[in-house]
């Protein structure tokens, strides 16, 4: 669900990798495609639906003031909002370690990362608002529980090594999910995703570096790193949503070029990436069934526990209540700041009438 619309997850098999290369190369390729597609001429169909279809067909972007089917609008609002909520709630597990980071350098890095996640939430809320919903409504739907955020953030960060595992695995899985969204048919979402993915690559690398450093350290540091990977591996696999066999209605999302790959296709891509990266760390992925399948050209692996995923989504994960309580309290305790800023703005606007807005 992190950049993955849960209600419409799943779909036809796929899984050729979009573009090879590093994360940044893939994002740049998406950016180039956005530009070259925009130069294509869209056939001159003047009916609303016809024009919408032609724009999608030409791989161009739908922009906020274009006509669009109501379902397209509603589905996108839900997906972008859930994505934004995930970025906002996602600050908590790592925020937990800012005051206890082992050095000033690590503390500065972690602060910068958590600040980026706040930024990602704000880019995405702004993208959702272009579809005709207000910020208050969006924030309200997170606070009253009507909309979900990614299940992964309901797991606790017990040790410093968890900060490494979150960066490597959770941001890593998020990137695999999000890179295809850089090509999403809705312009403001695609542009926000390009910006976000460029920032994500630092997140994944700093986590990987933390684990690498621990893996080179004392036996107990190495054990701590291994323990964190053991706990985060399966929840990270579950971030891609339920298996394709259990998911319905994603066809339309694919046809509208919002979603481009199935849950299982993306999950496989993530597993294939991690195996090699884990071996460089000298640490193990906690799956005895993990092995190369020459016929498929992919690693076979053990599926995450999807019943557990459903339980966490329903609110029964280890930290669901804590995350929501924290978010609500932060929102309430910030009310006086918002009110004071508004009062000050109103007073100044009254005093200097030529300053509009």
């Amino acid at each position: 669900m992190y950049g993955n619309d849960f209600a419409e997850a799943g779909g036809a098999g796929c899984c050729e990798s979009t573009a090879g290369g590093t994360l940044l190369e893939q994002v740049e390729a998406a950016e180039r495609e956005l530009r070259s597609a925009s130069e294509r001429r869209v056939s001159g169909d003047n009916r609303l639906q016809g024009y919408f279809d032609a724009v999608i067909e030409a791989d161009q972007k739908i922009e906020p003031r274009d006509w669009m089917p109501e379902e397209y609008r509603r589905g996108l609002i839900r997906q972008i909002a859930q994505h934004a909520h995930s970025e906002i709630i996602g600050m908590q597990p790592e925020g937990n370690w800012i005051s206890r980071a082992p050095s000033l350098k690590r503390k500065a890095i972690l602060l910068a990362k958590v600040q980026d996640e706040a930024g990602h939430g704000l880019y995405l809320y702004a993208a959702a608002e272009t579809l005709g919903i207000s910020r208050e409504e969006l924030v309200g739907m997170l606070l009253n529980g009507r909309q979900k955020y990614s299940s992964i953030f309901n797991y606790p960060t017990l040790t410093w090594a968890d900060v490494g595992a979150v960066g490597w695995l959770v941001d890593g899985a998020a990137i695999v999910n999000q890179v295809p969204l850089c090509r999403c048919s809705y312009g403001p979402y695609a542009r926000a995703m390009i910006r976000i993915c460029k920032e994500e690559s630092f997140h994944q690398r700093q986590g990987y570096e933390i684990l690498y450093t621990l893996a080179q350290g004392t036996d107990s540091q190495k054990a701590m790193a291994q323990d964190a990977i053991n706990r985060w591996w399966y929840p990270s696999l579950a971030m891609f949503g339920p298996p394709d066999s259990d998911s319905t209605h994603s066809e339309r999302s694919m046809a509208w070029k919002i979603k481009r790959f199935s849950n299982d296709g993306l999950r496989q891509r993530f597993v294939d990436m991690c195996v090699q990266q884990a071996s460089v760390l000298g640490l193990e992925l906690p799956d005895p069934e993990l092995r190369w399948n020459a016929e498929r050209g992919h690693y076979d692996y053990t599926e995450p526990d999807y019943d557990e995923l459903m339980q966490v989504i329903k609110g029964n994960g280890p930290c669901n209540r804590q995350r929501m309580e924290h978010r609500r309290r932060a929102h309430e305790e910030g009310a006086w700041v918002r009110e004071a800023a508004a009062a000050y703005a109103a007073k100044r606007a009254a005093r200097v009438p030529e300053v509009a807005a």
Partner: protein
Amino acid sequence: MTQPLWEVFVRPRRGLAHTHVGSLHAPDAELALRNARDLYTRRQEGVSLWVVPATAITASSPDEKDSFFDPAADKVYRHPTFYDVPEGAGHI
């Protein structure tokens, strides 16, 4: 209590024009600028920022494609490629 929406424009480097990068909410222009700095230029993406109240923008049409731009379509003679340059004419 709704805070107004601001559109944010960044000049990436000297010599380049300001480009729209996104939007944000802020109670006034001063806070909009500060928020824009923290939100859109955390990695030295710009040397200059503009924030504009979204309500101050007048858009050409309710629709991104529009007959508003059609008059330019049949005036190919506005492009240099329309003209035949005789053989031997230099610097033109």
